[in-house]
């Protein structure tokens, strides 16, 4: 990847690469914009910048992640994602082979998620001004009639569910980036969740909240929802699914898995009496096999997220201002 002179040949090369891997009719129009008929129903859109080091990691890469991240944000409204646009910032010196790997992975992820990448842009920046590759994606999806999913709808008595084990992505990235050799290689959970969501709203159309616990993990996301809905949350430590190897790595690193990022999991909140139905629907879907009910929404003017520990104590799972800093004196 080079910058400046010789740019024309390079631009053609990149164009070609995108056409091959992201191929679809709208992109093939070859315009600076994609023109399409809006699908019927309510539309949702979401945009997200993807920055990750390393670009390739066990369980994924930045290309797939850029699709999954935005597809999932769209899906968390209960929507079926349709289109994506993508903007690439590439650093001079990025091997073309790496770029091809990334774009190919993106194409595969998009096809798997049933979305088309219909517009895109590429910029190359000088060496040292980027971290190899940044990808911003914007998604558009359509919400089925009657679905009303929003972060402010959690009510006391509701159940809190997660779709599977927590902390995989963050630990995978950290151990790969810092080359921390753990006995078992931990893979990121990066995946699109739109199909799981479709199965869930089929079973329980009145899901109150859906959110993917990405940066800041389960703890931060539950605090966001508690604040938005003006409620408290009570979760039970033993009920939270965490893989043994993730738990072991977190213990060694001194990290609390509840604050570690995920890229293929969701939190669902629904009426308490619908929870078992929803759980059953999640567990029959391949992406929700390890789903669990982890707690419930409660009335709480303090809007605390609190956790009953395995020892029977109850600890506040608080917002953190930054990284996990020791508080014990």
């Amino acid at each position, binding site marked *: 990847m080079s910058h400046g002179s010789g740019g024309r040949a390079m631009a053609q090369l990149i164009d070609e690469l995108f056409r091959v891997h992201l191929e679809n009719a709208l992109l093939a129009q070859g315009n600076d914009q994609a023109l399409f008929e809006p699908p019927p129903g309510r539309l949702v859109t979401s945009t997200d910048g993807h920055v990750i080091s390393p670009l390739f990691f066990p369980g994924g890469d930045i290309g797939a992640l850029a699709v999954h991240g935005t597809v999932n944000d769209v899906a968390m409204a209960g929507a079926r994602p349709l289109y994506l646009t993508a903007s690439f910032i590439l650093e001079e010196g990025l091997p073309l082979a790496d770029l091809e790997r990334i774009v190919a992975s993106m194409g595969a992820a998009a096809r798997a998620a049933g979305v088309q990448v219909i517009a895109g842009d590429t910029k190359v920046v000088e060496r040292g001004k980027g971290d190899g590759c940044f990808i911003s994606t914007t998604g558009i999806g359509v919400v089925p009639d009657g679905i009303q999913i929003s972060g402010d709808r959690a009510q006391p008595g509701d159940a809190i569910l997660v779709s599977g084990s927590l902390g995989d992505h963050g630990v995978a990235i*950290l151990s790969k980036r*810092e*080359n*921390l*050799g753990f006995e078992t290689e931990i893979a990121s959970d990066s995946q699109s969740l739109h199909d799981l969501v479709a199965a869930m709203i089929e079973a329980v159309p009145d899901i109150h909240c859906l959110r993917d616990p990405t940066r800041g993990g389960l703890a931060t996301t539950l605090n966001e929802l508690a604040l938005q809905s003006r409620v408290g949350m009570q979760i039970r430590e033993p009920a939270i699914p965490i893989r043994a190897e993730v738990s072991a790595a977190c*213990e*060694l*690193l*001194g*990290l609390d898995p509840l604050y570690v990022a995920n890229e293929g999991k969701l939190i669902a909140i629904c009426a308490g009496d619908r929870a078992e139905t929803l759980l059953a629907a999640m567990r029959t879907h391949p992406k929700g096999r390890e789903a669990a009910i982890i707690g419930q929404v409660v009335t709480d003017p*303090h809007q*605390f997220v*609190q956790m009953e520990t395995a*020892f*029977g*104590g*109850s*600890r*506040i799972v*608080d*917002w*953190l*201002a*930054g*990284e*996990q*800093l*020791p*508080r*014990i*004196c």
Partner: protein
Amino acid sequence: MSNHHSSSQRLRLHTETEGESIRVRGLVQGVGFRPTVWRLARAAGLAGDVCNDGEGVLIRLWGTSAEIDAFCHALMIECPPLGRIDGIERRPCEAPAPDSFRIVESEAGLVRTGVVADAATCEACAAEIADPGDRRYRYPFTNCTHCGPRLSIIRAIPYDRANTSMAAFQLCPACAAEYADPADRRFHAQPNACPVCGPKVWLTDAEGRDLLAADGLKPDVVAADDETPGFAEAAAATAADRAPRDAIEAASRLLERGAIVAIKGVGGFHLACDATNPAAVATLRERKRRAAKPFALMARDLDVVRALCELSPAEAELLSSTVAPIVLLDQRVDGAAKTSGPVAAEVAPGQSALGFMLPYSPLHRLLLQDWDRPLVMTSGNLSDEPQCIDNADALTRLAGIADAWLLHDREIVNRVDDSVARVIQVRTRWLRRARGAAPMPLALAAGFEAAPRVLALGGELKNSLCLLSQGQATLSQHLGDLEEARTAREFERTVDLYQALFEHAPEIIAVDCHPDYRSSALGRRLAAETGARLVEVQHHAAHLGAVLADAEWPLDAGPVIGVIFDGLGYGADQTIWGGECLLGDYRQWQRIGHLRPFALPGGERAIREPWRCLYAQLESSLGWPQCVERWGDLESLRALRERPIALLAEMIQKGVNAPRTTSVGRLFDALAAALGICVDGIAYEAQAAIELETLARRALGEGGYAFAIDTRAEPWQLDPAPMWSALLDDLAAGVPAAMIAARFHAGLAETVAELAARAAQRHGLETVALSGGVFQNRTLFEATLKALRARGLQVLTHTRVPANDGGLALGQAAIAAVAPPIYAQSPLRGR
């Protein structure tokens, strides 16, 4: 000089009757002060009146000046037990003399009512419950103006019965008469009660069934737990005995048989068992899920304590005070011989001290009356939670722990834990300031009289909060760890309660700088809501402020050298501090020295796993490969090599959750791990350091490992490398661990003294202040004190509030009251 006299200045003869108005300041309201005045005036045959007002108590008295002198003298001597006279001012009073002495009701709104601390049963009340002829014989809620519950039962001000949980009980005529009679010890005693009209006590099982059946305790009912050895058999055997007189006696019998009884006391629940019964103590540990943290003990009287522990006059006095704290005492070497059996080893594993308290309520006195051996009286909770205060809650939460519940119907409104103290160098050193001590106001030194009103919210663990106004500071009872959800809720409620009880609307709110402390978050929110000015005070500066305020260092007395050693606090440079030498006072400070920074691989994990600290210390001080080369055969190094230290090395090198710290608390952990103490983990805070000190006390007085003081660095650095080399050489030479522990303590004390002395000399000062939880280590504290004094330095230490974070709010308040607005951001630079 003028020969004119104003109308108030007249020549007076000693025999001439004159009016005087006498202003008494101090702790004089709600403690039975006015009846004392009334009694003394009556006894002296003096006319006048007394009332409470906004500044304390105002007395008007008519008599000769000699009579009034004598009265004031008597008042100083006979100040009620819960009162404290800070000053008496006398002025002539021109009004005509009345014909008798009266107690005058104060005008509403004028009185700063406040509320005093819960006080241990006075001797007069104790005598009544022991007297079969008294109407309060064996009545567990007997109290008077000089003793009984206060803070634990109050809901709102003014401190009247209606605003306490005693509102549920209507005074009977006999009690009402006492309440109304100024000559009675119970005049205006709000919690006054008797068997006719007051609270009742009963004994139940987990289902709430009354265990005190008419025919005595039925073994099949009381034997709730078959696992307690011999419990059912003993219960059956005793069923033939005389039926217990009441629930308390029944509970006492259950305890004798090895049962665990939840007992509702003054400020919360205890879990009790026979401290000399190893099986009962072990069962309690297991059920409470408290692995190693020592249990407190309660003994009937000083003789029982003396049979087991060394007891100095100062310690005996502290035990018997109205605070009645848990006092940490050294066990007698020959202790076992003097009682029916030794205290079970499971009471305080790994420690040479025992924590004793005396019965501080009539209920406790009655419970222990037949016990010539101590009871375990540990907080009624599951490990890490705050203790229960409510009957229903106790029945639920203690269901898996207790065999029976001794309950009563006097509601505990505010949780007030037992205070904990020890005596070092004849002075009381608080480890936890709660029941009996809070909310006693603390007088501040000159300079704070006109300071603005401050609410300081303390730290994250061992939290207490502080109100400052009118030259005094009111530190709340120990509230506990704010990461615990129940405690966090109580904390917010207590902030409201204290502001209401002391009618305190803060102009300034002081908090710690830590971005994630709950107390800081609440402070920021309150400041935004109320418009109060927010002052963030750096953690160790607050510790310095706390010791200055505690030692009544005057506001304008100038800076001192502060040595602040603790676990961890958020530093001004965003790293984690804990081994600090500061130059400063209430208004400004600068960091002039600290322990050499090292990494904490795993952050909070490293606090719980001392082996991480050991690796980090060795790596940063000497280099790990060099250690392996020179001392690789040592057991402690071999053990380290079997752990994932390669990962730790990566974490430190790459900065993955390996925050840098200067914590001396963590240095103690490393030391402990080097000697094989708590290598894998600690079961309670500071366990490694406490066990290390216990070890050190067995081998005092043999040299010390010096640290290097690097004065070329700015700030100066304490480098532990020479200490580690000498220590590892000793280990290799087979020097006993106790000796090594002792040499570490001695060396650290010398190092602190040397550092402080050099700093004092550099800055032309003579005073050194010591604070932070590490100085609760008696061995280190005593040695440091001695070494500092040997260098001719004056030393300020804590005597009124804890050196640990329990005293932090006092320092925050004192600093925020006088510091410039940008205090936290602009430490003083240079001089």
